[in-house]
């Protein structure tokens, strides 16, 4: 039974049908969301006949959280602008962070180079050209100290985009905070630490699934007990979407991963309400404006239900789905790159209307190069324009009550839950990853999507519509100074000579013993970090104990 009485709904449904017939609404071209949900030209109360406001929508901060996790939304706290940045050496990146902060960036989102993400040291000759390339190079505590020089860790909210080596980076962060005199209970921030999606979306995996899940639990436990303000995971639908998932699958697979992390943490004896309020998500917003907004609203409803009913969380803060969302690099084009500024604005606007807690807008030069400072400023200004010049932040969940948005929210909810149920019925997400099922699905969909673009079935300005002949490349290029690489290699070599190597060996041996045993590896990692063991050395010890993930490649 909905808010509007049944006879009224029937009247409206009849009138709607008459209107559709009179205007030949069934003869116009059919439209669909990217997931294939049919979109009507007009919605009325008859499209949400059972809507019960108090039951289905409610108030922000209250169950079922559809309108948002924070009671007063942006009226008490604007979203955090979290532009993704990092390159070269720690010293170079430190300067870039300060520059972005001066320009009004309110939170850091640190990009690490692939060498750091994959657990190697910069002096490894096989990967020299990757040092400092797509992010900052971090080899040891020494680099972390430089990275945060002059940045007070109790005041600045920092996100780390790091996964397989997350426990090592957090150990370094913890010791850096300690050296700054910041007490552990004041240490905030977020670490991505979502390794399941690495296996089927982002590709920065190192260890097999089981030991990875064990280290994830170690990190959850450490955060919960030692740095309670710190957010130990940002579950990424973003990369899943970028790999070819639909908006429905993006949420469904991310939630399945999140459930796996929760069960993992519960198996350590952690209380659900001790960590669930600090679970967070990272999602992709594409150009399907209303579909994306409905997706987030539906996801909040589902997440609240999972946490309250499936896991028995009592604290309302555990029921909130908190997330970062802005734009999506994969929706950007190489051609006519200035159009990406507009795509970034539309996608970020949808993310903010949907109620994201943090946002990152991509740079227009995505398809050409690593972002230049000029492109980063335009991306940051996109968010600031929405924050300060528009009236969008003034009211919470402003599209609630739209017949269309509520109807689409309900439909997205149904489809997300059905997708989750299907994977769970077939043995769960970890089995789907290890067998390559999910990789195959995303690959096939990515291929089909590309074909749709090439056939003109999915409009993409500059690619299949309004293509400009003889387009000149006008994008400025990121400058990577070869001196940064040499400097980083020199630094890590000098460190390996200078430090107390007997102490390093002791701590690495202890790490190996802990990895073979059952104890929490965060503590031996912190000891090794303090002794200035390198990230590559610590990872090598863990690889020796745990082995490496074997990627399923026969998926075509």
């Amino acid at each position, binding site marked *: 039974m909905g808010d509007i009485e049944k006879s009224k709904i029937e009247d409206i449904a009849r009138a709607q049908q008459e209107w559709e017939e009179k205007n030949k609404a069934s003869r116009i071209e059919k439209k669909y969301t990217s997931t294939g949900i049919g979109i009507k030209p007009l919605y009325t109360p008859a499209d949400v006949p059972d809507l019960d406001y108090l039951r289905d929508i409610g108030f922000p901060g209250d169950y079922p959280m559809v309108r948002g996790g924070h009671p007063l939304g942006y009226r008490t706290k604007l979203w955090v602008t979290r532009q993704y940045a990092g390159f070269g050496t720690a010293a170079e990146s430190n300067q870039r962070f300060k520059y972005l902060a001066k320009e009004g960036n309110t939170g850091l989102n640190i990009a690490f180079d692939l060498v750091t993400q994959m657990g190697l040291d910069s002096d490894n000759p096989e990967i020299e050209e990757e040092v400092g390339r797509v992010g900052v190079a971090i080899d040891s505590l020494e680099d972390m100290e430089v990275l945060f020089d002059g940045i007070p860790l109790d005041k600045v909210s920092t996100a780390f985009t790091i996964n397989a080596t997350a426990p090592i980076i957090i150990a370094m962060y913890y010791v850096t905070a300690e050296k700054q005199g910041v007490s552990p209970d004041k240490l905030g921030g977020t670490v991505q630490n979502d390794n399941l999606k690495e296996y089927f979306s982002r590709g920065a995996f190192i260890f097999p699934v089981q030991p990875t899940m064990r280290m994830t639990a170690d990190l959850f436990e450490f955060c919960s007990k030692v740095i309670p303000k710190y957010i130990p995971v940002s579950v990424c639908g973003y990369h899943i979407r*970028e790999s070819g998932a639909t908006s429905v699958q993006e949420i469904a697979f991310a939630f399945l991963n999140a459930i796996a992390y929760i069960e993992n943490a519960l198996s350590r004896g952690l209380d659900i309400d001790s960590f669930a309020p600090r679970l967070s998500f990272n999602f992709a917003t594409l150009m399907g404006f209303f579909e994306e907004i409905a997706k987030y609203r539906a996801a909040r409803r589902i997440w609240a239900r999972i946490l309250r009913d499936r896991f028995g969380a009592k604290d309302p803060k555990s029921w909130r789905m908190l997330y970062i969302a802005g734009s999506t690099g994969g929706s950007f*084009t190489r051609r006519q790159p200035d159009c990406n500024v507009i795509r970034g604005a539309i996608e970020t606007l949808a993310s903010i209307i949907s109620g994201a807690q943090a946002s990152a807008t991509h740079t227009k030069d995505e*398809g050409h190069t690593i972002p230049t400072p000029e492109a980063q400023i335009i991306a940051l200004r996109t968010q600031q324009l929405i924050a300060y010049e528009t009236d969008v932040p003034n009211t919470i969940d402003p599209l609630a009550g739209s017949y269309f948005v509520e109807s689409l929210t309900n439909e997205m909810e149904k489809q997300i839950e059905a997708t989750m149920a299907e994977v769970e019925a077939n043995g769960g997400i970890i089995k789907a990853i290890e067998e390559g099922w999910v990789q195959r699905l995303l690959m096939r969909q*990515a291929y089909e999507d590309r074909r749709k673009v090439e056939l003109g079935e999915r409009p993409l300005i500059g690619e299949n519509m309004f293509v400009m002949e003889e387009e000149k490349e006008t994008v400025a290029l990121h400058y990577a100074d070869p001196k940064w690489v040499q400097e980083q290699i020199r630094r890590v070599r000098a460190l390996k000579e200078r430090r107390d190597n007997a102490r390093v060996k002791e701590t690495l041996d202890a790490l190996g013993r802990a990895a073979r045993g059952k104890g929490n590896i965060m503590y031996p990692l912190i000891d090794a970090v303090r002794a200035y063991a390198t990230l590559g050395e610590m990872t090598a010890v863990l690889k020796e104990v745990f082995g490496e993930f074997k990627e399923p*490649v026969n998926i075509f």
Partner: protein
Amino acid sequence: MARSNAPIRVLVAKPGLDGHDRGAKVVAKAFVEAGMEVIYTGLHQTVDQIVAAAVQEDVDVVGLSIMSGAYMGYTRRVMERLRDQKADDKLVVVGGVIPAAHVPALKEFGVNEVFLPGTRLDDIIDYVKGKIGPR
């Protein structure tokens, strides 16, 4: 490249530490759909692993996908190693986020063609078929 009537054999490879494989997989799938035999290396391959696979699998085409900005070094080293192995008769194509200004340098290393983001799959297939010739 002497086998007649046999399908074109392509190695699709991801050199280095880059995990962005959507493009590589989409192109690999397009090659499969076009009737070619595809060997996909998976992620995180060293230059030596890629060259060894190219030789061992006796492929006609080597496709490198590089989204990490490290295209110069990896491409140069793959070409050098292919020459060392006397396997430089293979068609080598590169795809990825690469500034157009850097394409001539890659071709100087001996790469036959570079495909930038937004390239049509059929253009890539036609290029490969045109170069390897009818079977």
